Structures are given as C-alpha cells and as structure tokens.
C-alpha cells in the first residue's frame, strides 16, 4: 500500500492538525525533518464509508491542503523514511480487541480484522506502529517476519496496492503475504497489563522425578531463579536428555517458578505433532494457567496466554513477547528449518530472556558451546526406567538397491524381520525415501504374511496408520524419517535399511535407535543399521549412544556410593 509523506515541519506549524484523528496527537518531540506518513486507505473502506467516523479521508483534497501546495508523491517503501512516532496518548481509549490481537505480536495489516482507518487512528495516538515488511539487504531482500534472505524465495509482481513493481516473500506465504509495500503492525501501548503479575499458579502434577531428571530439573530451577533475579551469566541453557528420559516432566518445576514470577513462558517446537501432544499435558499440569497452543489450523490464532506452546511458523506472529523460551527438539529439522526457528525465537523473545534448549541430539555447535561453558548444560544420560539405551549393530548388506529393483530384500533384513515376528514383536523399518518405502513394502508383503504398513509425511492416513501400529494391528511399519521421533510403541524392534544415505545423520540415527526399549516392561530391543558402506554419521551415532550409557553408569555408581555413606 502507498503512504503519503508529510514533513513534520508542516504539521508542527499547522493549527488544525491537532483536531484530526489521522495526525500525531502530539508533536513536541518531533524533528522538523522527520516525516509523518498517511496511508492510502483501500477502496472498499472508502466505498463502505467506514471512514465516516472518523471523518472521511481523501488524499487529493482538503485534508492535505493545509500542509502542502500540491498533492505529495506517495512513497511506497517504509524503510527509507525517517518516520516520527508519537508516544502513547493517555487520553485516547484504544480498542481493547485490537490490544488482544496486537499485544506482544507483530502482524500483517491484512491479518487484523479492523479497518485501516481505525488502525491508523491508533498509530496517530501512539498505541500502534508500522514497520516495514521487507527491507533491502545487500543486493537482495530480507523478510522481517520470517528472516528469509534466499533470493530464490522472493518474487516480484505488479502490485495493485502500491501501483509499482513489488516484491513478496515466498518463504512465509502460508501465513499471509508479506510484500515490499505492506506494513507489519506492532503494539506500542504500555498501560493495562492483560494478566496479573501476582497470580498464583498451581501445579497439579505430583509425579516423582527419577534421579537423573531431578538433577536436571534442579539445575534448570537454579538457572531460572538466577535469571529472574538478574544474576545469570548466560542466557542459554541446554538440557541434553537421551530419548525416553521424560523431558517434559523435567520442565514442570522450572516453568512453575517462572510463571509465579509473572513472566511469560513459551514452549516452541518445529513439529505440530509435538504441540498437540504437549498441550493436554501442560493443561493438566497447570490447571489455573491460561495456556494456548498455536499450530497451523488452530482455532484461536490471536489469543493471549501466560504459557504459550507454538510451532515455528506460528511463532512468527509474536514479537518481543516471552521472558522464558523453551525450545523442544530444536534439531528435528534440517538446517534451513532450524535457521527459521532461530530467527522466529530471536524475534519472539524479549530483549532480556532466557532460552532453554531441550534435545536428545544437540548439533556440533551446541555441543561445543556446552563443553566450553558458553552455555549452561544439564545432561540426562539414562531413561526414566534406568536401563541403558539399546546399542545399534551395524550390518553390511551390499548393493541392496539393485536387489530391491527386482523386489528382493537383502536376506539379512528378511531374517531380522522374521526372527522378531516369530518372537511376536513389532518392527519399525526406516528407509531413506518414499520410493524405497514403496518398494520395500511390496517386497516385504511377498515374504511375510502379517500386516505390513508404510507411512510417509504426505500420507493422508498417516495418523490412522500410526494408530494401527500402536494398537498392534500393523506388525511391520515401513517409514521414512518422519517417524524418527515422538512415536512410542512398546517392545518395538528397529531396523534402518540403507543407513548410509545422507538423510540418516547422527541425530536422525540416534533418534531412530531411541525408539527401541522405551517401555519399563521391555527395556531392551534390537537396533540394526543395515548399510552398504559404513558412514561417519553411523559411527558418530554409535559413539554418542555408548557415551551416554557410560555416563549413566557412572552416575548410578555415584548414587550407590553416596547411598552407602
């Protein structure tokens, strides 16, 4: 959309600007060379006479006349303007509905169900502000909502709003279109807290933590209380917890502490599945707290919560909102998605905030930072049931792809499947791609007579199939890496076919191995990486698991000795 710039000099010296709701209510602190920007309102607002009250605005006529000799040339890029923002006007009563939408958020003007006239009125009274959606960076662009700078994810078009060649971000298009001329709107008003800071939050969860969980939980609580008192040295904390150690429970005490200090807490994760799983657990644990979950397709997209659980994408709507940010499964997606999440978090957290990462497989940078002490770290080496993690075995299967083309599975894989089916176990078989998945499914059906299922990310029956596997109706589930985390099935045995593929990184392989032996009733299980050539990632994954187990052993010994004293 277009904005008409008016030099503050003209407004400061004009007597009648104070009476107009579209001009800054106060000009005392303005510099004469700054500009005030008057937006061009959309034609339908003019048509529907939405602007009758406040008075109608037509840029060609009387409104601008006092300030200028001729109609000004509209400007269409917000970023190259020195724009005057007035402080909030205490006399003005903002629309409380707009406050609910905008507080702690930064939204596209199109996402707001208010007329542009009303929004601009709030800007003129200092309660809201515009920010550019896209700014130039080097030769390219930077999307201020999602942080995208990839030139291939920007496109140009002839824009009807700014009547010019305009750019838009294709990276966050799913959340509404950010264009070169569209402003993002933020809230500037200060008074009127939505939630009381002295509210007492009750924790209904009364389960016990394992020795390992307790230690991590205590360390987190110390870190949070230091942060709350402003004594923390680092503003990052890593909980390195092995698969199946009960991460969520470890967070409860720390979150309670933070909530009772009146700070806003965010739990962010790249995966919708995780949000859906966490929401009921937190609602149960904190029955009196206002908790909202945000994910694609959630009903309430603009509610305000004391504790927010959100996916990466939905996080992009928040701005300077949270004091405590907990990131679950930060490494669940490849690097680019990870970068996006980090940008989203950097925008959603307050300037002074504490970030807690929770993961079973931190990346190399994070590991290094933790070891150097740049980031505080708590390791949880054992599962809740105290048994060690099943260590994977590596089996060479030669040119498995060739055989698969003729619908023949490697004999080692067939033997593995048959052995466990005889033992009445269920089997998870991970493969590198959808195509391999289909071929393996067809080949398996020829050699075994139980129900074989196959599931991938775009599968419409994904939920149903996973459910059927959980119930034991499907005995063998062939899957791509999408099920590498989160799915817990009792007594499952795990195979990876083609573990040499690039998609199977250390973290993916550790997560996959972490599917086995999760239940306290069946704490062991077989994990085999079937490969055609050992990769570094496989070796690293194996080392990772062995080291975790050794660390757990050590700590158990310490406990025994400590108990003996």
């Amino acid at each position: 959309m277009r904005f008409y710039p008016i030099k503050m000099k003209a407004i400061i010296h004009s007597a009648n600007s104070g009476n107009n709701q579209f001009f800054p209510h106060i000009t005392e602190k303005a510099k004469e060379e700054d500009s005030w920007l008057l937006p061009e309102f959309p034609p339908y607002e003019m048509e529907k006479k939405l602007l009758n009250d406040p008075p109608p605005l037509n840029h060609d006529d009387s409104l601008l006349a006092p300030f200028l000799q001729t109609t000004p040339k509209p400007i269409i890029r917000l970023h190259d303007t020195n724009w005057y923002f007035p402080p909030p006007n205490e006399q003005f009563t903002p629309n409380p509905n707009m406050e609910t939408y905008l507080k702690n958020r930064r939204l596209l003007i199109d996402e707001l169900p208010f007329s542009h006239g009303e929004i601009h009125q709030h800007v003129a009274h200092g309660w809201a502000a515009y920010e550019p959606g896209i700014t130039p960076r080097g030769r390219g662009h930077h999307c201020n909502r999602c942080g995208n700078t990839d030139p291939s994810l920007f496109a140009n078009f002839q824009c009807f709003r700014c009547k010019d060649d305009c750019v838009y971000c294709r990276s966050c298009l799913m959340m509404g279109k950010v264009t070169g001329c569209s402003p993002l709107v933020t809230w500037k008003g200060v008074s009127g807290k939505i939630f009381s800071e002295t509210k007492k939050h009750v924790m209904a969860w009364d389960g016990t933590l394992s020795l390992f969980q307790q230690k991590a939980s205590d360390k987190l609580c110390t870190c949070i209380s230091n942060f709350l008192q402003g004594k923390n040295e680092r503003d990052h904390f890593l909980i390195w917890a092995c698969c199946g150690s009960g991460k969520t429970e470890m967070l409860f005490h720390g979150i309670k502490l933070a909530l009772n200090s009146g700070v806003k807490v965010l739990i962010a994760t790249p995966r919708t599945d995780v949000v859906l799983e966490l929401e009921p657990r937190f609602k149960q644990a904190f029955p009196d707290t206002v908790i909202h979950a945000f994910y694609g397709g959630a009903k309430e997209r603009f509610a305000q919560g004391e504790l927010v659980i959100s996916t990466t994408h939905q996080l992009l709507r928040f701005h300077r909102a949270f004091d405590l940010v907990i990131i679950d499964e930060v490494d669940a997606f490849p690097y680019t998605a990870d970068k996006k999440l980090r940008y989203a978090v950097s925008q959603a957290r307050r300037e002074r905030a504490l970030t807690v990462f929770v993961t079973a497989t931190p990346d190399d940078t994070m590991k290094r930072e933790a070891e150097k002490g740049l980031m505080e770290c708590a390791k949880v080496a054992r599962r809740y049931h105290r048994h060690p993690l099943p260590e994977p075995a590596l089996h060479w299967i030669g040119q498995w792809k060739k055989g698969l083309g003729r619908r023949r599975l490697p004999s080692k894989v067939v033997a593995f499947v048959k052995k466990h089916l005889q033992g009445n176990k269920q089997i998870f078989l991970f493969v590198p791609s959808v195509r391999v998945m289909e071929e393996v499914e067809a080949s398996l059906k020829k050699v075994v007579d139980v129900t074989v299922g196959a599931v991938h990310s775009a599968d419409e029956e994904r939920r149903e199939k996973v459910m059927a596997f959980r119930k034991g109706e499907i005995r063998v589930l062939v899957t791509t890496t999408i099920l590498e985390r989160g799915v817990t099935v009792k007594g499952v045995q795990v195979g990876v076919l083609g573990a040499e593929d690039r998609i199977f990184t250390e973290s993916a392989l550790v997560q996959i191995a972490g599917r086995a032996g999760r239940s306290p009733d069946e704490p062991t299980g077989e994990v085999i990486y079937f490969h055609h050539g050992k990769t570094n990632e496989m070796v690293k994954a194996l080392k990772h698991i062995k080291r975790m187990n050794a660390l757990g052993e050590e700590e158990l010994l310490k406990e025994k000795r400590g108990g003996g004293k």
Partner: protein
Amino acid sequence: MVGLSGQTKLCPLCSAQLKKMEEISCEECGRPNLGAPAEGTCHDCVRWKKVAPWDTKAFHHRALYYYDPFIQEVLTALKYRGDVALGELFSPDLKSLGKKIGSFDFVTYIPLKEGRHWERGFNQAEVLARSFAAKPLVERVGVSSNKQSKRTREERILAMKNAFVLSVEGRKENYSGKRILIVDDIYTTGATLRSAASLFYEAGAEFVAAVTVARAVGSKARKKMK
C-alpha cells in the same frame, strides 16, 4: 518439442500430476472428451445458442488442463495465497494455446472489482496473460460482491449479465472485424467469459475466443476420470 519450447519449471513429479486437456468433445467450449462419443456441440453450448448474441455468433474456448484437485491446489496458491510467481508456470503455455486457435488483434483478461483487486494486490488473469501483449480492455461493474466460485450455473449467468463494460482504454479501440482473445484462470460454466465476449461482439468484433488454465468437468465426468 524442440529446444526451449519444451521447458518447464515444474519437477517431473508435479508435471506428471497435471492432467493435460488432450481430447475434446465440444468444438465450441472445449469440453473434454471422457469416453463419450464426440458430439460436435455439447448440451451446454446448445442451450447458450438459444440466447443472443450466441444464436449468430461463435464462441471458442480451450483450456490447458482438466480442473482436478491438484490444479485446484496450484490455482488456490496463486489466487488466494497470492503466490504470483506460479503464474509463470502457465502463461507461456497459454500463449501457445492461443496461437493454436489462430491470430488475434487484441488480447485482454477478465478484470477484478477494485475492492477485490486491492485485497489480493493483483489480478490472477492479468498475471496469466503476461506472455501476451494484453491490454485491460474490460472493466467490471455492478454491485455483486460474492465470489463466482460459490454460485450455481443459473446464479452465475444471472450475476454475469451486464457485469462488464469496456474500460476507458477499451473504448478507444475499434473492434469491427477484429479478432479478440480473452484470458482467465478457470472455465466453469462459461458465464463470465461469454459475458465479456458479448461486449466485443456488440462492438462489432468478428471472432472472440478464450483460453484458461483449467476447465471444470461435470461431476459425472469426474467419476469417469477416476
């Protein structure tokens, strides 16, 4: 295909999902042939021929693809989500399709109402017509604010009656004896395109044709396709 004419920006997997309109059963509206014997002129077009100007004037329409869930998704991303870059996937092909019909003196596209145009920020038909030297010859009038895609055939025809006028630019041209091509995204009943086409016939045009990305097929035909 030779050289660059065969290039596409789609990956093979996505290309394979587009159902190309290969056989048609109606010479006028380009209704696809889905097993039924070729009729020459379909039932729908026969109905149209009972009202002016279609009793004396010809109408011609061709589409690139069958309207199915896949193309629906692509067009939704273009139209409602505003991913204008997707227009590049179809615009060059629409130009080739237009050339197959014949040569034209004017190319134009179906306009949007100003309010809707502002809301979207662009006109998808204009984006699709980018490969042509298209001009905004037509303008939308009338008060209806509902989307055409939410209406039945009868409602569409009624709503489209006198929905267009020639734009300021359009009134400057002389159409007598000229051939005109209109571009749009989807063909459903033909009400929109025929309404715009009749304007040019009134102004003395010799022949008006239309090209679209996708043509809807009836529910019976859809079942056959499966």
